[in-house]
């Protein structure tokens, strides 16, 4: 554990600057060996130094080197960061030089692991950092940052404190039964406590789902009969927000084929084949196919033609949409109205051709997923699958308690379940211990941070 590790901590090949991070007891010594500015060894902490990386006499790159001395660093060890001029070859060459001079290549997630082991961050924070690295939009980035700051931890800590107070009261009742002045915890107290716990846990879980949406996007299907203008709508959405549509080859029917960002929301479009090949009249998504898509999507954009009457197929789809998140988009408002929309509520009326009202699709999505609120409220969501799985377990324990209460199980036994919940919540913020948990967590980190 006390060797010095190094890794390239920026994405490979992209960007004008790449950063190579070194952490450990010998970090400063090793970098000094390959750096032109020999005063580096004596440099005060948190300073930046200009110079060249040299392989013997050969200049490899012109760089800035940051010196951060323990313990006020990310890993709480000596950390050196080399800002190089990019290019895979140069960056790799510098890394190679570091390895030759005594560094070990960092394992995936090892910097974060050291930060955790040295007590710099707790488990939730470690997970937050990983989300930060993987964040795709501003909002998801902000969310990850908030988690790093410990907002989730404080939320969970509050729930834990509430439990601790009721648990300790039960303990006092057991250990000092003869004291009549101490409040006796009854089933009513417990019912109230678990109700509160249930409400809050459910809320965190639900909002976490929305957090998940920010992080990885909404699985979205655009459906509608041929010639309702799905492709022009898509093009307009893309054009409007300068989003990127990526083709992923060889994907199956319901996997994501394109990612579209509207107002900081990621839409992962599934099955766009029928949409984009509009020039062929093959745009033939039959009802059966549509139903399949509806089944698989988290959000359905159902496009109707302002200029046409509804047919049986449309009505069948409308019926199927009832239990889904969906937006009805009535396109072609530039033409005459022929649609009978008296039974269609909450539709968005647009003209893709003339670019009218397209922006309201974004607001509608936010409304459906309750995202407006998230943007303004504190971003206190659990974003990792592990934390969520634990909260689901908490809900299961709550059910156990309810079952126990219905069976007249004595309070001192119910308390065992309360204690379990307390431990589970502790696991989320790393305050109780589980070996596998650590191994699992850290193997998920990407190299460099």
């Amino acid at each position, binding site marked *: 554990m006390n060797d010095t590790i190094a890794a390239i901590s920026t994405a490979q090949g992209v960007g004008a600057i790449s950063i190579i991070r070194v952490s450990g007891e010998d970090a400063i010594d090793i970098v000094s060996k390959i750096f032109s500015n020999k005063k580096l060894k004596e440099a005060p902490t948190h300073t930046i130094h200009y110079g060249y990386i040299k392989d013997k006499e050969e200049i490899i790159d012109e760089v800035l080197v940051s010196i951060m001395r323990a313990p006020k660093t990310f890993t709480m060890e000596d950390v050196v960061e080399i800002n190089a001029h990019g290019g895979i070859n140069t960056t790799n060459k510098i890394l190679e030089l570091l390895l030759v001079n005594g560094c070990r290549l960092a394992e995936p997630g090892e910097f974060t692991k050291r930060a955790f082991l040295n007590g710099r961050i707790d488990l939730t924070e470690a997970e937050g950092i990983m989300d930060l690295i993987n964040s795709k939009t501003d909002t998801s980035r902000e969310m990850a940052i908030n988690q790093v700051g410990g907002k989730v931890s404080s939320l969970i800590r509050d729930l834990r404190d509430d439990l601790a107070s009721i648990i300790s009261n039960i303990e006092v009742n057991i250990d000092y039964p003869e004291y009549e*002045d101490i409040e006796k915890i009854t089933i009513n107290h417990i019912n109230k406590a678990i109700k509160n716990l249930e409400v809050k846990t459910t809320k965190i879980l639900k909002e976490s789902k929305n957090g998940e949406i920010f992080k990885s996007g909404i699985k979205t299907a655009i459906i509608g009969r041929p010639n309702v203008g799905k492709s022009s709508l898509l093009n307009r959405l893309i054009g409007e927000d300068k989003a990127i549509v990526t083709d992923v080859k060889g994907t199956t029917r319901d996997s994501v084929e394109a990612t579209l960002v509207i107002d900081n929301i990621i839409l992962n479009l599934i099955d766009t084949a029928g949409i984009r090949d509009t020039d062929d009249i093959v745009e033939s998504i039959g009802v059966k196919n549509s139903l399949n898509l509806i089944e698989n999507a988290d959000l359905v954009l159902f496009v109707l033609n302002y200029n046409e009457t509804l047919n049986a197929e449309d009505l069948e789809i409308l019926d199927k949409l009832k239990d889904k998140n969906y937006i009805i988009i009535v396109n072609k408002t530039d033409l005459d109205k022929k649609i009978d929309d008296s039974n269609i509520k909450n539709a968005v009326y647009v003209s893709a051709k003339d670019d009218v009202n397209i922006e309201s699709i974004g607001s509608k999505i936010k409304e459906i997923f309750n995202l407006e609120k998230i943007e303004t409220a504190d971003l206190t969501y659990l974003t990792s699958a592990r934390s969520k799985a634990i909260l689901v377990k908490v809900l299961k324990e709550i059910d156990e308690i309810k079952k126990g209460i219905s069976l007249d199980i004595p309070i*001192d036994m119910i308390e065992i379940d309360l204690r*379990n919940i307390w431990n589970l919540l502790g696991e989320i913020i790393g305050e109780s211990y589980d070996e596998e948990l650590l191994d699992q967590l850290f193997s998920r980190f990407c190299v460099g941070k």
Partner: protein
Amino acid sequence: MKYEIIVVGGGHAGCEACLAAARKGHKTLLITGNINNIADMPCNPSIGGSAKGIVVREIDALGGEMGNNADKSLLQIKMLNSAKGPAVRSLRAQADKITYPKEMLKTLKSTKNLDIMEALVKDVLTKNNKVSGVLLEDDTSILADAVILTTGTYMNADILVGDTRRREGPHGEKPSNYLSDNLSKKGFKLKRLKTGTPQRIAKDSIDYSKTKVENGDSVYHTFSFDNKPMYDIDEQVPCHLIYTTEETHEIIRKNLNKSSMYGGLSDIKGVGPRYCPSIEDKIVRFSDKERHQLFLEPESLYFDDIYIQGFSTSMPYDVQEKMVHSLPGLEHAKILKYAYAIEYDAIYPTQLKFSLETKLIENLFTAGQINGTSGYEEAACQGLIAGINASLKLEGKKTLVLKRNEAYIGVLIDDLITKGIRDPYRLLTSRAEYRLLLRNDNADLRLRDYGYQVGLIDDDRYKKFKKKKEMIDKAILEFKEKRLTPSNNDYLVSLGTTALKDGVSLYDLLKRPEIDVKDLIRFLDNEYSVEVLEQVMITTKYEGYIKKSIEEVNKMKHLEDKLIPSNIDYDKMHNLASEAKQKLKEVKPDTLGQAMRISGVNPADISILMMYLKGM
């Protein structure tokens, strides 16, 4: 003079220790400062209480004496928490302060291989860090292969009252003035602790009309699994409940600076028990509480003292007079003994092994208050374990270590040597994470096998226990096999439970909260004792919860089984937090499971330790 085992101190720890050693056939000597004070109860006149009562049952299951002796001398007994679940029930008895020591002394005197001597011990003799005997204050040495120190509160004891401090043991007994200094010279880290005891007042000077009567239970109980009740339910002596008044609080607040603890004495180093605060502590710390509960407890049938539980103090005598007379019913009470605090030396228990042998000196064991605990029961169980283990050590056998999931005794010893102590340690049910497994009713099922294996349970008692176990298995089988059908519905409905549609086993029926085991006896072919039926009922009704606890035990097992080599060098693990490093070096945990429980060692330290162990 040469003995195999010498026990120093004749309190509750010492009695169990010397009895265990002598009963296991070792030539044993008990050295006590005053033979008339053997098994004395210098504080409250009661045995048992929450968690402690279960310990007494455990002592009995292992072949110790406390339960049996309490059964012989009780004035009143009740099952605490009887309205709660079976896991937290615990016996508490008022024991007669004359009868209890008298009976214990009788037992000691009639035990083979056991000699008793009146003397004070000044030092432990050692050769190459191994015990060779003890040195008395008159400079006589007595040789022994093993020594068990059970000195209670006697090492460097000071009695504190108001602004006075005098070198004295409880009841004005001679303190031990040299032993702890000599232990310190041998390298033991000492800790100064403090405890206190309330006033005793004359029985006839109390106006009982102003008190609430607290009677014993109206069903019979015994601590020992082998005893029949030796008391008459109707002859139990009652306790009485009263409350402090605003006047009491006012007197205490006004005189606070006269209390030894609040400025009366400036040189107090001892740390008092958090769980047993003095009355001035209670009033300062819980200033918004209008009243505090006090119990008037009878001390003996043979003298007049009434003990005021909850009123311990180190105020000067004149203030104590005013305080006592401010209590309802005690306006004219005659104080027979004043309250006092006592400061004494203990050793840091982290210097012990699980067997209660010291890490520093081979064959030296310590037990009881010297290890930083408080309470007769906590002392007795350590004495028993030290007595058993000193004997096993001399016999060349593996020592007896009870696990946290096996006994409160295991919880106590693990807590002591793993976490150390801040203040006198009291057992609480909340300290036992597996308390559902550590019940009052199943102490014999958990521990009697050990008692038999170490030789403290004789064949007769063991046979009786085996029989009970067989009957429990048989009963559970019968409950599972016997089924009721809708033809029994009339009876079931009369019990207030829903009618059956199909056949259901008695076992499953018993799971219904409204059904008691007694309701189902009529369907059984065999007759079972109350104890056996109780086991059936607990097994059935709480099956799910018991299973959960066992799963928790198993989850921890792989960590408990992961051994830490004794030559491990924590200094080499640079990434350990310095507090964790220091604690690990001090405690030297045997297993990863134990390391996890050390306070100040956090999960990150454990993962570092684990990685290091993997790399070794």
